């Protein structure tokens, strides 16, 4: 792993003998995915503009600073309780821009469509994207369409890129996280991932779980405007709360303690997760984020968040600690603490 590729010689820094091919687990949001991104993409595309470990790049241009991000969406099924691939493609990119402290403005959308897809389905997805963009106050201004042979796609894949404006003087990043900072989350956990699982895996569960997919720019705008000192934000997508906190703990070189008592999970989500042997703290959300801020601002922030429709049920989940090991731990209800490591690949359901 420590081998540095020599200039001009194409060599892969990943331990190829272990993974000669890409596994699904390389997209699971865990350590495998981080190794892949770090060793293949970050190494190859390294640039000065690239801000380390953030959801969007911060670009200083003549006349101002913008945030720029991109995200691809391959969710199956295309329609699920609480959303669809179109609304998700808007929410995901809008939220990535917000996490960098930007006001989202413009999106692009690239469609990769599988031959044979029903036109009605495509239209429904496009309409949903438009509605989501209108609600979030962003415009979809450019796009691209490709069609691939039947069997070479999964209905529709969508890529959206987004641009937002970062006001002068605003910087939000993991390295601003301080010991004693509080960590707030804007609601219950695990709904998006479990809604998809329930819909996808034909588990025979009644589909009562609705995805939390939502654009967060209005809520985050209110927090920004209130004068609260925001140190860092991270959306809790793939890998859920625990992966997001591990990323920030690692970047900030500070340990984090999560209080089990602060974790909120809807009963139906908890029940399905229990049956599948999956921990909701590791399950993807599409409308939840973690907010790092000084302890003194907690009450004010929670008051604003709980009044906002996208922040009902906001709660403090943890605290940043003094020590520099960059670990995340959970203080259980019974007293003992345990480590909350980043997941390795995918969570595999247990068998009995």
């Amino acid at each position: 792993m420590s081998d540095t590729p020599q200039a001009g010689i194409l060599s892969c820094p990943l331990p190829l003998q272990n993974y000669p091919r890409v596994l699904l687990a390389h997209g699971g949001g865990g350590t495998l995915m981080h190794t892949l991104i770090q060793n293949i993409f970050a190494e190859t595309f390294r640039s000065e503009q690239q801000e380390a470990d953030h959801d969007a790049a911060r670009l200083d241009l003549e006349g101002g600073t913008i945030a720029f991000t991109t995200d691809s969406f391959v969710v199956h099924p295309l329609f699920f309780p609480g959303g669809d691939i179109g609304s998700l493609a808007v929410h995901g990119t809008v939220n990535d821009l917000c996490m960098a402290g930007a006001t989202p403005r413009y999106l692009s959308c690239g469609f990769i469509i599988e031959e044979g897809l029903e036109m009605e389905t495509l239209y429904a997805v496009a309409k949903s994207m438009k509605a989501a963009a209108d609600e979030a106050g962003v415009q979809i201004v450019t796009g691209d369409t490709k069609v691939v042979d039947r069997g070479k796609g999964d209905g529709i894949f969508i890529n959206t890129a987004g641009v937002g404006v970062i006001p002068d003087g605003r910087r939000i990043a993991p390295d601003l996280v301080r010991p004693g900072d509080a960590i707030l989350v804007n609601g219950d956990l695990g709904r998006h991932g479990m809604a998809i699982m329930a819909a996808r895996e034909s588990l025979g569960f009644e589909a009562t779980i609705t995805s939390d997919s939502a654009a967060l720019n209005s809520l985050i705008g209110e927090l920004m405007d209130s004068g609260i000192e925001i140190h860092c934000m991270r959306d809790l997508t793939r890998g859920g709360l625990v992966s997001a906190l591990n990323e920030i703990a690692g970047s900030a070189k500070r340990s984090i303690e999560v209080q089990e008592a602060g974790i909120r999970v809807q009963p139906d989500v908890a029940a399905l997760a229990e049956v599948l042997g999956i921990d909701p703290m590791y399950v993807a959300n599409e409308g939840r984020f973690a907010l790092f801020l000084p302890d003194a601002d907690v009450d004010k922030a929670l008051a604003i968040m709980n009044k906002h429709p996208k922040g009902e049920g906001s709660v403090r989940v943890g605290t940043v600690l003094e020590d520099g090991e960059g670990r995340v731990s959970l203080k259980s209800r019974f007293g003992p603490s345990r480590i909350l490591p980043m997941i390795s690949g995918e969570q595999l359901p247990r068998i009995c």
Partner: protein
Amino acid sequence: MKHVEEYRDPEAVLALAKEIKRITTKPWTIMEICGGQTHSIVRFGIDELLPDEITLVHGPGCPVCVTGVGLIDKAIELARNPELIFCSFGDMMRVPGSDVDLLAVKAEGGDVRMVYSPMDALQIAEDNPDKEVLFFAVGFETTAPATAMTVAQAKEKGIHNFSLLVAHVLVPPAMEAILSMPGTQVQGFLAAGHVCAVTGYEEYHPISEKYAIPIVVTGFEPVDILQGMLYTIRQLEAGRNEVENTYSRIVRPEGNLAAMKLIGSVFDVVDRSWRGIGEIAASGWGLREEYHSFDAERKFNLGQQVAKENPICLSGQILQGITKPHECPAFGTLCTPEHPLGATMVSSEGACAAYYKYRRQTSTTA
């Protein structure tokens, strides 16, 4: 979830821990059989609530962990067959065979699918009549009824493109194997509640008598586990050795008679090779003669595999409770969930995975 929360109630947990402390006067070594119990213990930190006198050793009750390398190699050979759809529980897909795991075969292009029930695999067979569909039937007595029902239905419906690679294993013979080992430390067992829900616990009486050991049928939530421990320690302190049931909300003495009848009609008791332990006589279930046409090992012409274990991996000793995960020199260094050397680091019920996930201790011997 209400019924789960009841058994995670902090007050009840702390009261049980206090009572265990009060009655414990001597050192005792107790083995929890089931990997589900191991994970609960480590996840909730239950071992940290116990007095120093109590040593917990983690048993072989993770079906994924004990499935023989030879069978996994057969699974991998079958999964590479382009004519075949290979269905497996998720846990099994990352367990290394001699060379690779099933996820690697999937990435190579093998049609490997994760299912939640053998019935899903049968449905896939019905939906793909021009393909052979195979289910990797792994599990203890808990998953056997579902396997048995699936095979019985396949026969009834006349579905001929479906077969099973059967790896079912049985708990009581493994308990006896552990108790028969020279130098065994185990003085009491927490029996696996969900296994007993199927089989009942009548067959534990002779084991308890023969080896003079308390066996307490125990559930999986913190309150259940502490209750099982309290009963076991009470017996040990009083010099008794009996079979007791602390999981009576789920387990009846005779078990699930309908399930056992179905199992008896589909399976025979067979010898099985346990990963890390070796061959144990009469320790598994295999398909009866009238179901041989569904037996993948008979249906497909499989090459001769030479099963290779990673020489560094101590999973055998870990499965027998001789070594704790962090006492293995490879733990957390050469062997991690990203690069598991043995099955105990893979499965959600494996002891090494539990220690890695919740404790992240590094090897104490490296």
